[in-house]
């Protein structure tokens, strides 16, 4: 059928677009072992600089490309110098979070400068079309392909045959050894970030021209697809990133062909999970490699947790318990209800990310599972709300653990990528499984919270209910941490190889952590569903997952009190910053950066 030719060409065209971002990501990963979540933001910056050049300065195309490349490279150098270099000797998770913070800051700066309205970015190439199959391609398609392939090829040659390239590879292999051999690692990093950023900026420009449209939301999507393509191709492998991108484009295109448009991203993320499970080093890694170097003590910041005296905790607890009796406004109570709900999620995440070291970026999926289960149980089967919420917790524990289990064999950043993908998959399944979840229409008319037949509808009663549930979950978790399980979880986090050598089964204990954590998250989602009365697939999104992770880092990994403190802070601060309106996400990003820089172990320290 001729359509298959069209689907193939379309897949390759969009794969081209992904490749531009993926190559930059691969280059940075190759040297720094870092997934640069800010790459999409550089892409965004490039697109807008290109817009200024084309629309306001009327530069010709070659000059536009040079302007964008130089400007983006400068941004890259600044990121490297001031955002990442200070974290060189920091814990491994710090630079990852720093890139997330940088991406918030860059996206917001662009949005504040150019307004969030989309803009047209006209192509500067002649409007000629070539017929291929049933469709056409234009010179811009060829230019994008050319830039992608050429840059991959040039980088390959650069890495293989130049002195600086040799230094880059040496640094990638073993940073310390390279330094001993006289390689100036900082210069190497600068070179790599400069090149990757220039490439990112030019890709933003070209893709913006391709769609004749740029807007501030393009950043996250570019990063997501770029990361998928890069990991599929083998993280750090530059030619692999190009092939991974084309493959991703093809899989999406064929997926659309076979099942329809709404399944498209489902295929992208399933591809990622399948590759990670079957070939964690990417499709193009050599078959069997030496067991990887353990991450002993480097993943988590060495830390002495802040000891809070028991009486102080009891006093604070007491104050919050009687708060509704004091003259505080209902708005404060409502804000704290949000904090308690986030607190339950943070307890869950601090257990799996902090205590057992599985940094999950898809934790909102557990909320969604709990929320949908509880909502549907109470609506469809008239289960009393209290039991429905517990059902939500149990379903989240069981289903969540089963879904995340493929990532148990992965380590470090790969866990984050896999959980991010699994989170997206859950959201897409909710969107598409209309028979159960009611699809995009969502579930409305969810009955309000009730307990033993009494409806909890006043903010005061909801406050007490959510506060008590969170405190109970926190106490249970504290008790868990004090048991042999807490010890075992932390041992697996600190050194999974040594832990296995002492008889700790990773699957068993990671499962237990996710079961316990999934329950808390599911309860949080369940309560939220009855609170909101309406949920759909967007209620619990990736931003929630990232927010929860920030809470956990802020409070201190694995730290139960820290999770609660962090939740109150991160729910409260944006409310306080309301005065700053449009600037508050910017402020949030800067706070995150400062935190990672100056207190990576969090306010209360890692436990």
């Amino acid at each position: 059928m001729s359509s298959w030719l069209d689907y193939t060409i379309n897949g390759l065209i969009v794969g081209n677009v992904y490749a531009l971002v993926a190559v930059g990501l691969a280059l940075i990963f190759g040297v720094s072992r870092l997934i640069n979540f800010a790459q999409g933001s550089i892409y965004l910056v490039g697109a807008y600089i290109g817009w200024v050049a084309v629309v306001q300065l009327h530069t010709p195309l070659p000059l536009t490309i040079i302007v964008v490349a130089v400007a983006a490279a400068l941004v890259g150098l600044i990121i490297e110098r001031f955002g990442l270099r200070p974290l060189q000797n920091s814990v491994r998770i710090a630079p990852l979070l720093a890139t997330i913070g940088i991406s918030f800051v860059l996206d917001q700066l662009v949005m504040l400068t150019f307004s969030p309205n989309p803009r047209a970015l006209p192509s500067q190439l002649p409007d000629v079309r070539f017929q291929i199959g049933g469709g056409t391609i234009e010179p811009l398609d060829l230019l994008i392909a050319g830039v992608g392939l050429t840059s991959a090829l040039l980088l390959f040659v650069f890495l293989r045959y130049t002195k600086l390239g040799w230094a880059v590879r040496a640094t990638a292999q073993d940073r310390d050894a390279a330094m001993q051999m006289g390689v100036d690692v900082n210069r190497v990093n600068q070179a790599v970030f400069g090149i990757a950023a220039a490439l990112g900026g030019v890709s933003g420009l070209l893709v913006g021209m391709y769609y004749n449209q740029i807007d501030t939301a393009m950043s996250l999507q570019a990063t997501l697809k770029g990361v998928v393509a890069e990991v599929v191709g083998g993280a750090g492998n530059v030619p692999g990133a190009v092939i991974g991108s084309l493959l991703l484009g093809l899989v999406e295109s064929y997926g659309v062909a076979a099942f329809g448009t709404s399944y498209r991203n489902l295929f992208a993320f399933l591809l990622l999970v399948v590759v990670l499970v079957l070939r964690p080093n990417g499709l193009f890694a050599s078959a069997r490699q030496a067991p990887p170097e353990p991450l002993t003590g480097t993943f988590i910041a060495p830390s002495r947790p802040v000891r809070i005296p028991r009486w102080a905790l009891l006093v604070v607890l007491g104050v919050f318990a009687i708060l509704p009796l004091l003259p505080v406004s209902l708005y404060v109570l409502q804000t704290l209800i949000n904090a308690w709900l986030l607190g339950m999620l943070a307890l869950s995440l601090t257990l799996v990310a902090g205590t057992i070291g599985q940094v999950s970026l898809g934790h909102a999926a557990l909320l969604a599972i709990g929320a949908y289960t509880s909502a549907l149980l109470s609506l469809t089967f008239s289960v009393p709300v209290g039991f429905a919420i517990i059902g939500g917790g149990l379903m989240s524990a069981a289903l969540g653990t089963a879904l995340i289990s493929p990532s148990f064999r992965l380590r470090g950043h790969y866990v984050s990528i896999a959980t991010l993908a699994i989170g997206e998959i859950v959201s897409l399944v909710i969107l598409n499984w209309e028979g159960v979840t009611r699809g995009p229409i969502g579930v409305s008319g969810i009955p309000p919270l009730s307990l033993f037949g009494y409806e909890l509808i006043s903010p005061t009663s909801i406050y007490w209910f959510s506060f008590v549930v969170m405190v109970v979950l926190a106490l249970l978790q504290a008790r868990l941490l004090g048991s042999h399980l807490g010890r075992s979880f932390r041992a697996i986090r600190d050194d999974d190889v040594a832990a296995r050598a002492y008889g700790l089964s990773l699957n068993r204990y990671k499962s237990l952590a996710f079961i316990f954590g999934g329950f808390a998250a599911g309860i949080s989602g369940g309560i939220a569903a009855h609170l909101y009365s309406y949920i759909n697939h967007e209620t619990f999104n990736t931003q929630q997952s990232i927010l929860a992770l920030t809470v956990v880092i802020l409070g201190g990994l694995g730290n139960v009190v820290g999770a609660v403190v962090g939740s109150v802070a991160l729910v409260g601060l944006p409310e306080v910053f309301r005065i700053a309106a449009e600037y508050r996400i910017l402020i949030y990003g800067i706070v995150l950066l400062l935190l990672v820089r100056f207190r990576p172990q969090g306010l209360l320290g890692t436990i």
Partner: protein
Amino acid sequence: MAIAHAAPLLSVRGLTRRFGGLTAVDAIDLDLAKGELVSIIGPNGAGKTTLFNLVTGLDRPDAGNVSFEGQDVTGLSPETLAAEGIARTFQLGRVFGNLSVMDNVLIGAHTRLRAVKPAVPLIGPLLELGLALLRPASVKVEEEQLRKEVKVILSRFGERLLPRIDQPAYSLSYANRRRVEIARALALKPRLLLLDEPTAGMNPTETAEMQALVAELKAEGLTILLIEHKLEMVMRLSDRVIVMDEGKKIAEGAGEQVRTDPKVIEAYLGHGLSDAADQQESAA
């Protein structure tokens, strides 16, 4: 020499492991009788640590087999082998950095936990979670006993570790971390103990202490496989010495006999007994 007549505790036949073009462990045969202490020496990169990884299940061989107490245990997981009573220490000193000394050693006793890990199929893990949260008397008693045992084990190191029992392991000196590793291995009540360079980075006094401890363990009847660079210690402690070079066993026998073997001398001269870390070895 105490060579048992029964089947050996550990028996390795034709064990081979390749990394790409390099054969890190090349058809090694090895027997270890109960109560015996055998040392493996050889230049860096000879494949000693890889051999340890193969025996303890952290790596899978390309060929050959390993049997423990007459049972084929080739390719079993490290968890299973730990439960069988094989404990090891690591060349690079892998303590659990954020755990206290006490908790580090308690992890060593993990395979011996009974009260909190009911051997029920399928729902066993869930029961484990429940018991950890409820903590009935039996669980508490077990935990208390283990904590007492840990203190006894730590007292073997004199005043080195006991005063630091609640400190996180990352705050310890290098030598103390190695001691924690050995204490952790002892907490498993191993039937076979594999020590990977226990004195690396230690000064002469500390080395002497360590040597005395290993001698004590041997005297208590523990079966030990030892990788060590300090030849004097090897000669004093070992019942037998095995020399490896480029993955192959090039000599085996009593200490003095091996020491004068021309092949061994050549291997050491040829490669140099340098301290620079070899990639393959340290990556493994």
